[in-house]
């Protein structure tokens, strides 16, 4: 896939700086904005993820580019009103190309005191705060950690310099629903729809898609459907009729390449990529998986496609998950297992078995903060070295890393192609940031997808003699043989095999030969990997930013800014193939005075690059469970550029 998008050259004002000038007025004006970041923040039970997703879907369907960042606690319902319970959803949208969810936000919606306290620090100067005043009573203040008897941040100087809209969302929602037969608790749950209505009005967005969504979600429960619709419309009317809002904002559709788009998250794109690859390959999918954040959505998503013959198996543990997938792969299915770091560790022994058996298998690792349970809902890129080395014995495996939510589709499609065509397990790396984040995707049609070459052996490959299940072709690849094929009965296993026959062999020189043959097979995959080109910038220059995985958006944004500012000798190369590396990576590295590797770990790609190419690459590490801010990377690039 190409990451190229046309930048809208129109030079409209950015939202944040402009708002400082807004004065209360009875006349509502409409302003055009180029791009904007909104943060929805509330209690885990406030429905902020759903509100954010609805706002995002509507924005997407109106043709704007966007990037989202859901951020939620590991606890399902941490004590209501506390800082631990704050759940946020950030969306960056606009008429220009968008590559990240944004470092800082222009608008903060805070449903309670804890949300404000937690998220105000990243609101831009002069930004807009919309608060639900009902979430700021003495109980809420106390839960948010304000000392007993302290003044509400709505009343002191905390919000000086911001444009503040104080709305008693809870009261307005209750008033709007006073006819409803729902319980008070159920009525209060509708307050997120009221807020969404206000925002739809403020940003001049149609309620149509959300109304449709509500029909689908609550169609079977008319009382709840009615209440949500009423709350949503009341929010819109509140914006329209009260005079507290003076300005509305409009965003033009983004000038993205022509085509048909959908909004997609990384885990959805991964699941669809698996379905597409299996269909192109003509294989049945068998997913063996054990629930784990942030990978569970892959299991959920694939479980929806029973009508397409997809088999999903929720195993008793991570080990059984991969083992069942190995069993399925042995029978000629596309075996898939999906997990996150702790699960990958448990699968390690079975990965070595699959490598030793030389069966195709897709292993998806959606990385999260580690080690151990670490930060389950936060992002990190700290499993790269585990993917590279985390097996016993000499067991190299191909590794493919996705760069953006929609890129998960292409990356997993390629991972499966390599796995099948080279009879080798492939590790696919994504992370919580792009797995849960979403963006518009110009999706392919079936005809655009490359064919995947599947061959099952049906006749003895050694006419006149015994079958040779480990006889290799010129790429070092052995045949895939399905049990059930008459006359080809044979045994495979984890014990070292005699070359070609696959019979157990303890011969020392044979073992060394087999270790080499298996490694060569993986190394030869580099022959099919396209030569690497800079994503932006020239092939030679002063500074090369070498990225991998989900840092793509932040680096891309920085590159656009730097090139616009005249730093033409800075380039960006983004790695998808983590093992084997593309053949020309060494040449590219040598074309630059300095190489900077930003990673959400303590320098894992850095180690691999230094070890393999002996270049003095410089690492830039962030391990806060959060993606890079563009400002952070930009400052680091300039520091190196100027040093």
């Amino acid at each position, binding site marked *: 896939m190409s990451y190229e998008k046309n930048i809208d050259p129109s030079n409209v004002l950015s939202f944040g700086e402009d708002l400082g000038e807004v004065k209360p007025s009875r006349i509502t004006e409409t302003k055009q904005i180029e791009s904007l970041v909104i943060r929805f923040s509330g209690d885990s039970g406030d429905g902020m993820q759903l509100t954010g997703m609805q706002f995002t*879907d509507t924005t*997407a*369907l*109106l*043709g704007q580019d966007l990037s989202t960042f859901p951020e939620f606690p590991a606890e399902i319902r941490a004590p209501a009103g506390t800082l631990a319970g704050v759940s946020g959803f950030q969306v960056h949208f606009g008429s220009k190309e968008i590559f990240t969810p944004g470092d800082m936000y222009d608008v903060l919606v805070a449903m309670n005191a804890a949300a404000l306290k937690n998220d105000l620090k990243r609101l831009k100067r002069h930004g807009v705060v919309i608060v639900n005043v009902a979430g700021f009573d003495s109980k809420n203040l106390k839960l948010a950690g304000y000392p007993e008897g302290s003044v509400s941040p709505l009343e002191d100087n905390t919000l000086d310099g911001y444009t503040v809209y104080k709305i008693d969302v809870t009261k307005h929602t209750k008033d709007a629903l006073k006819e409803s037969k729902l319980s008070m608790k159920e009525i209060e749950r509708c307050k997120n729809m009221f807020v969404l209505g206000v925002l739809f009005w403020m940003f001049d967005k149609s309620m149509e898609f959300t109304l449709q969504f509500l029909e689908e979600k609550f169609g079977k429960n008319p009382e709840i459907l009615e209440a949500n619709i009423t709350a949503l419309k009341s929010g819109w009317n509140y914006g329209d009729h009260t005079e507290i809002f003076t300005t509305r904002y409009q965003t033009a559709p*983004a000038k993205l*390449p*022509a*085509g*048909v*788009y*959908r*909004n997609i998250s990384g885990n959805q794109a991964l699941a*669809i990529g698996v*379905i*597409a690859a299996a*269909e192109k390959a003509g294989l*049945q999918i*068998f997913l*063996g998986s054990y629930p784990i954040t942030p990978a569970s959505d892959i299991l959920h998503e694939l479980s929806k*496609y*029973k*009508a*397409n*013959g*997809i*088999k999903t*198996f929720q195993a*008793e543990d991570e080990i*059984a998950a991969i*083992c*069942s997938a*190995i*069993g*399925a792969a*042995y*029978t000629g*299915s596309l*075996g898939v297992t999906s997990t996150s770091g702790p699960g990958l560790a448990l699968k390690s022994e*079975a990965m070595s*078995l699959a490598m030793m058996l030389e069966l195709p298998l897709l292993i998806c690792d959606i990385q999260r903060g580690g080690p151990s349970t670490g930060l389950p809902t936060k992002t990190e890129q700290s499993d790269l070295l585990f993917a590279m080395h985390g097996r016993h014995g000499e067991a190299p495996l191909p590794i493919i890393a996705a760069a953006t939510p929609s890129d998960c589709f292409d990356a997993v499609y390629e991972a499966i192609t390599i796995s099948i065509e080279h009879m080798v397990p492939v590790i696919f790396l994504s992370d919580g940031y792009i797995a849960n984040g979403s963006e518009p995707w110009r*999706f*392919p*049609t*079936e005809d655009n997808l490359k064919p995947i070459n599947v061959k099952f052996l049906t006749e003895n490959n050694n006419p006149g003699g*015994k079958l040779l299940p480990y006889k290799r072709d010129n790429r070092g690849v052995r045949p895939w043989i399905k*049990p*059930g*094929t*008459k*006359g*080809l*009965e*044979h*045994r*495979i*296993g*984890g014990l070292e095999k005699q070359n070609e026959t696959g*019979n*157990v062999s303890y011969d020392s020189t044979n073992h060394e030969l087999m270790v080499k043959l298996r490694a060569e097979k993986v190394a030869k995959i580099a022959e099919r990997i396209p030569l690497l080109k800079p994503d932006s910038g020239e092939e030679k220059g002063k500074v090369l930013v070498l990225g991998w995985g989900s840092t793509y958006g932040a680096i891309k944004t920085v590159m656009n800014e730097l090139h616009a500012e005249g730093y033409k000798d800075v380039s960006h190369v983004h790695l998808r193939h983590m093992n084997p590396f593309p053949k020309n990576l060494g040449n590219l590295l040598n074309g630059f005075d300095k190489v900077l590797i930003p990673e959400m770990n303590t320098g894992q790609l850095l180690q691999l690059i230094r070890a393999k190419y002996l270049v003095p690459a410089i690492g830039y590490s962030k391990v806060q469970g959060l993606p890079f801010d563009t400002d952070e990377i930009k400052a680091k690039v300039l520091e190196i550029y100027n040093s």
Partner: protein
Amino acid sequence: METTLEPTAPVKLTAKDFTSDQEVKWCPGCGDYSILKQVQTVLPNFVTEKEKVVFVSGIGCSSRFPYYMDTYGMHSIHGRATAIATGVKAANPELNVWVIGGDGDLLSIGGNHFIHMLRRNPDIKLMLFNNEIYGLTKGQYSPTSPKGTVAKSTPAGSVDEPFNPAELALGAKSSFFARTLDRDPKHMQAMITRANGHKGTALLEIYQNCPVFNDGAFFIFTEKDTKKEEALYLEQGKPLIFGAGDSKGIKLDGFNPVVVDLTTGASKDDLWIHDEADKNKAFILAGFADNTETHLPRPFGVYYQTNRSCIEDDMAAQIEAAKTKKGKIPLNRILSGEKTWAIV
């Protein structure tokens, strides 16, 4: 390779057809030889397409078994054969899947997968070679070794209570449990045949002698001078009778099994009649091995058998139902999703 004279009646396979070209490398006198022979002997009775047979094993002496069978097979990793086999069967229910494992492999390192396979009930034949010792790692106690077992890792005797495989299996909702012995070929053949005939996970525990590290562990059940008193052969619908000259029987006093002497007035009519469908009685039979109140003989044969659905069939049924209801979703529709917009 194939005869064309009678295409409708396949040529009956023989034990030789199931014998691979690999040299069998168990210790002399190992009980595994007998098990291999009985399997190769009876398989031709019910297998006509050996290409559909898959033997999956884990790690241990017994797990070398698949190498010696001229069928499809996988010698996998320690404890995981049940999980791999579940994937094999779920992915292709047409295959005739067998799992081979020892007491360490299936009940210790593979204990989790073992119980979950039993509750899911895939149509797999599960052969537990129980020798109450670790053989391949050279003689440590196993999860079925009696408490106090002196072995390499337990010079002062093991301090943990062993599993009772029958109780464990029944507790995990096993749909079939039977027990046999390496030194009773005829009975083993009958039990393999019964296991094969069961639709669902058929767990066959085989007492298997390890002549090197645990020689004679089961001799009281197999040797002439003791077996009559110590072994009880179960037969469906028949009373529980054992002892020299069928002199003893077992009757139930409430939930308690009581040994009665048939030569001193006890009537056969009062004896416990074996019923494979009775799970409560199966649990009582399972408890014979641990009964400290009364010395009871060890039951062999089919303890329990019930018919319930298999995971691979339920999975396939859900898929069929979804196909009928919705029809296959075209790939282009999956790619586009429900909501799209066009940029021109």
